[in-house]
Every structure is written in structure tokens, then in C-alpha cells.
């Protein structure tokens, strides 16, 4: 084929795919703002649902906002505590080259692809077995399991990118494996670790299916770890399911709040991660 034609075709292809990516993001945001912004109000963010809220009466979705934040932060912290050592141990300095590591990676990849309703159903069965009811605790645990493969695999990828020379430098100074990992590897991989956490947070706060059975839904704020708790994705789902147009509008407003939380966090994390990057060796 003519070189110039090839070049031009490829250019068109790139523009089209970029257009689709950017365009769909903007359309999602635009539709949600268009439909949600008019019903967004301070009272919506500061009140829990009053009687008849789902019929279009007084109240807000503070229960879902707080519930989602509790669930997401709780599970992200728990997942981070488990993921970081797991990802570090998958380095080739530890078990990275063994058969075991191969099976761990395989399991994580399969888990990553597992639909979240499966996690929800699994969590539900386990909770029934132990006689627990839907609670903040249950939701956090299931969300943690949901986030683990995302966090561990993405962290492992950035940890793998840490140049071998850096580890060598640390070893030649008489550092142990642990000192090298904690002092050099984590520092160098920090921006990537941060991204992995944000990725997992986004997945956790946005997931409806896994918390449906395990965290339940309630109109009040949880007072302990063992109370059921509401969440934004389910709030969107329930409100959108009503036959009343004004409640459906509120569903968009709830989605807008969810979107704002996720966007704020990504922007803050980008800013923070830039601060961490200044020492990184390229």
C-alpha cells in the first residue's frame, strides 16, 4: 500500500478512537450533570431520607454518601494492608520466580475478571453460615476481596519496573532484602502504588452488586460496624427504579455526587503523586 495512504489511514483511526474515548467520558458526565444538577441541593447532601423520600418527599441521601465513604475507605485500607506485602513478596527477590507465584498470579487474574455479583453472592452465603446479617463489616470485607486482585496486580507491575540497579545499590551497602524493599523499592514505586490504590478505590465505591446482599441498605446512618449501611450505587439504583420523575432526577443527582467524589479523589491523588515523584529515578 502507498505509504502516505497508510499514514493517513492510521491517523484517522487514531483520531476516531481518541474521539470515542474522550467523547464517551464527556457524554456520561454531561448527561449526569444535565439531569442531576437541577435536583442537587444542600439538603440532599446533609439529610437522611425522611418518610416518603422515595415517593418524592423530603430528605436527602446522606445515608448513602456516608455509607459509601465508610465502605470505600474501610475496604481500601484493609486491601492496602494485605496487598502491599503480597505484591512485594511477588518480587523475584522473594517468591517471584516460583511455581507458587505463578499460581498466585493466575488466581488473581481470574479473580480480577470475576463479576462482582459473584463476590456478593459468595459473601452472602458465608455470612448466612455464620449467622451474620448484612452490615458495614460484611460490605467492607467483600469489597476488600473485590479490590485485592486489582491492587496486588497493579502494584506488582509497578514494583517490577523498579530498576535492578537500585536494588543492587542497596544490597552493596550491606542492606538486607527487607531494608532494600522498604527503603528503596517502595519509594521508587510509590506513585504507582498510589495509582493502584485509587484504581481499587474507584472500583470499590462504584460497585453495587457486591454490597447489595452484604452491606444491605438502610435509611439511617450506621452506628457500628455491624449495622447495615446504604451506598451510593444502590441509592442510584433504587431511586431510578421508582415510577416518579422527580425521584429519578434525584438518582442522577446521586450519581453526580458519586462522580464528584471519585473525580476529587483522582485529582487530589494526582497532585500528591506528583509530589512523591520528585525523587524517582528515571
Amino acid at each position: 500500500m502507498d505509504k502516505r495512504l497508510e499514514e493517513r489511514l492510521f491517523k484517522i483511526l487514531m483520531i476516531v478512537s481518541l474521539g470515542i474515548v474522550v467523547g464517551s467520558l464527556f457524554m456520561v458526565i454531561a448527561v449526569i450533570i444535565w439531569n442531576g444538577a437541577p435536583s442537587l441541593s444542600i439538603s440532599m447532601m446533609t439529610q437522611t431520607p425522611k418518610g416518603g423520600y422515595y415517593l418524592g418527599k423530603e430528605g436527602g441521601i446522606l445515608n448513602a454518601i456516608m455509607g459509601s465513604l465508610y465502605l470505600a475507605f474501610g475496604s481500601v485500607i484493609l486491601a492496602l494492608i494485605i496487598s502491599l506485602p503480597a505484591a512485594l513478596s511477588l518480587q523475584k527477590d522473594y517468591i517471584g520466580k516460583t511455581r507458587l507465584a505463578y499460581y498466585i498470579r493466575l488466581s488473581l487474574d481470574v479473580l480480577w475478571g470475576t463479576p462482582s455479583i459473584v463476590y456478593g453472592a459468595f459473601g452472602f452465603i458465608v455470612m448466612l453460615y455464620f449467622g451474620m446479617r448484612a452490615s458495614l463489616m460484611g460490605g467492607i470485607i467483600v469489597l476488600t476481596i473485590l479490590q485485592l486482585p486489582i491492587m496486588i496486580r497493579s502494584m506488582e507491575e509497578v514494583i517490577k519496573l523498579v530498576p535492578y540497579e537500585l536494588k543492587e545499590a542497596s544490597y552493596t551497602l550491606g542492606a538486607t532484602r527487607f531494608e532494600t524493599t522498604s527503603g528503596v523499592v517502595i519509594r521508587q514505586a510509590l506513585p504507582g502504588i498510589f495509582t493502584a490504590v485509587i484504581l481499587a478505590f474507584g472500583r470499590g465505591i462504584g460497585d453495587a452488586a457486591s454490597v447489595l446482599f452484604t452491606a444491605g441498605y438502610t435509611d439511617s446512618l450506621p452506628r457500628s460496624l455491624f449495622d447495615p449501611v446504604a451506598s451510593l450505587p444502590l441509592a442510584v439504583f433504587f431511586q431510578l427504579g421508582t415510577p416518579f420523575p422527580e425521584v429519578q432526577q434525584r438518582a442522577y443527582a446521586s450519581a453526580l455526587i458519586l462522580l464528584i467524589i471519585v473525580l476529587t479523589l483522582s485529582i487530589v491523588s494526582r497532585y500528591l503523586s506528583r509530589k512523591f515523584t520528585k525523587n524517582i529515578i528515571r
Partner: protein
Amino acid sequence: MKSHINIQDLNAFYGDHQALRNITVEIPQKQVTAIIGPSGCGKSTLLKCFNRLIDLTEGTRVTGKIIFDGIDVLSSSVDITDVRKKMGLLPQKPNPLPMSIYDNVAYGPRIHGIKEKNKLEDIVEKYLKIGGLWEEVKDRLKSPSNKLSIGQQQRLCLARGLAVEPEIILCDEPTSALDPVSSQHIEEQLLKLKNDYTIVIVTHNIHQAMRLADYVIHLYLGEMVEHGPANEVFENPKEERTRAYINGTILSDLKIDKEINLKGNVCPYNFVYAKQALHELSKGKILKLVVDDPLAVTEVPRGMEADGHGVLSVKQINKTDWEIVIRKQE
């Protein structure tokens, strides 16, 4: 001559490939020992056996003994972090750690248990001075190490290695990634350090070996061809292979076909004049330049290499002047 590292019957294997064969030699204390030989002859492997960095490469096997401070480094009962602490390594390519200049130097002392802030500050200052970097960085100790030039990074690596107070400094072609001025800096520091440390330097640059070494080990295809005091090996090698290797890379035997003096010219004019001079020569002829512009010392050789010519040597001949020897290619 007192020996510091005593190597007995050392063999090293990468899988089935034997990289070192029956090496038996003593490294003299508080002298500079140069390990010379062509690429792939096992120079770096030998160095990596000393601090057992070779363990970190998969599929390697080492047999024999390396006696250092009365212990066999290769024995499995040895605490290897302790041995590594006593042997600093200056790598081929500078590898600063992802932290500030200060933290780079303090990293070693910290992991070996020094926590007091003022003590660490003293250590950092002392070793940055020994490494010859203090004056350039004393006002920005907290800035990232990746902001330093590559030559400064290598001096930082030297200071970092010295801060854990080793007895031996291992250098793995420490100037091969550096420009001539930075290389010279490193060589000067090494010469200053040899009164206090045992230095082992791997180099493929025979001139560097001549400038620095007191003792020379010549390796060829994993075997030790010859070893002895530097002046004996360089002036009167016992082995034909050593003679051939030294003569093959030595410049004093080269016939200089044209010599031009470009003192007083700045970059890029000296480069242009050099190119013109080279243009008049036929292929394979040798041109010698003398320059005094500091920029030219790095830029002219770089430009010549980019044009496909061979840069045979860049060296300082007096306080201001540098000599660049180029072989015309194409």
C-alpha cells in the same frame, strides 16, 4: 606486600557457561589493583564474586575460596550483608537511590544503626567532601539526587559507598558512562583514596589502568593470564597475550598522521576545524587535536563518534589543555 583478599581456585558458572577458571591471586592491601582484559573476559564477574553480588543473578554457581578478613566470603555461613558493608561498590552506571542527596549518603549509615541527626549530618558532610562533591551540593542537600549531572551522580555513589566505612572499594568500569572531565574527577578521587582503602578497579581502558594501578591482573576468556606489579606488567609483560592486549590498545605505538592545535577556539568552531582536518586524511589515519575549551572536551568526541569516526582517547595533558585522538572511519 600484604594481601587483603586472597582468592583460591575460584571458578564461576552461569548455567553451563564457565565465566572464571581456576583463579588464584592475592589482592594487595591499600593499593590499586586493576583487572584488565577484553569485554566478556570475566572481569566484572570476578568483582561480583568478592561481595557475592553474583548470588543475585539466577543460575550462577561459584566454587573455590575468597578469604577476606580471615573468613571465606563464599561460605554459606557468612553474613553477607556484613561482607558487603566492608566492600563498597562503584557501579558502571551511576545508580543514585530515589531520595535526596543527603538521604543517599545517609542511607547506608542509617541501615547500620546510626540514628542521631547530628552524627548523620557529620557523616554526610565528611563523605561528600571525600567524594569531591561537597562544594557543589552543600546548599541543596535536600534536593533530589536525580537532578545531579551524571558525573556528580557517580561521585555521589562514591560518597555513599564510603559512608558505610568499607575497607575495600570495588569499581566496575566506574568511568565508562562518564564524560572525560567527570572521569578525571573520579580518577583523582580514587588516587586520593588509595592510602586508606584497598581499591580494585575493573577497566577496559588500559590508560586508566596505567594511570591508577599499582598491581594488575589480566584476564582473558575467564582465565588469569598474568598478574603482577603494574610497572612490570605494563613495561615487560611475561605473557605474549598480555603484550598483545596492551599493544593492541596502547596509543604510544600509534602513528599520529596529523596533529592540529585548536587552542583558543570555542565550540563548535573547533569541531568544524577538526572535521576539516579529518576530511583531508584518508580512511584509517589518525588525527590528534589539542583543545582548551572545556565544552569541546565532551562535545568534540561526541560529535566525532556521531559522524562515525573512532575516538581513541581523550586525556588531559596539562592544566588547561586536552588531547583528543581520532581515527578516521567511513
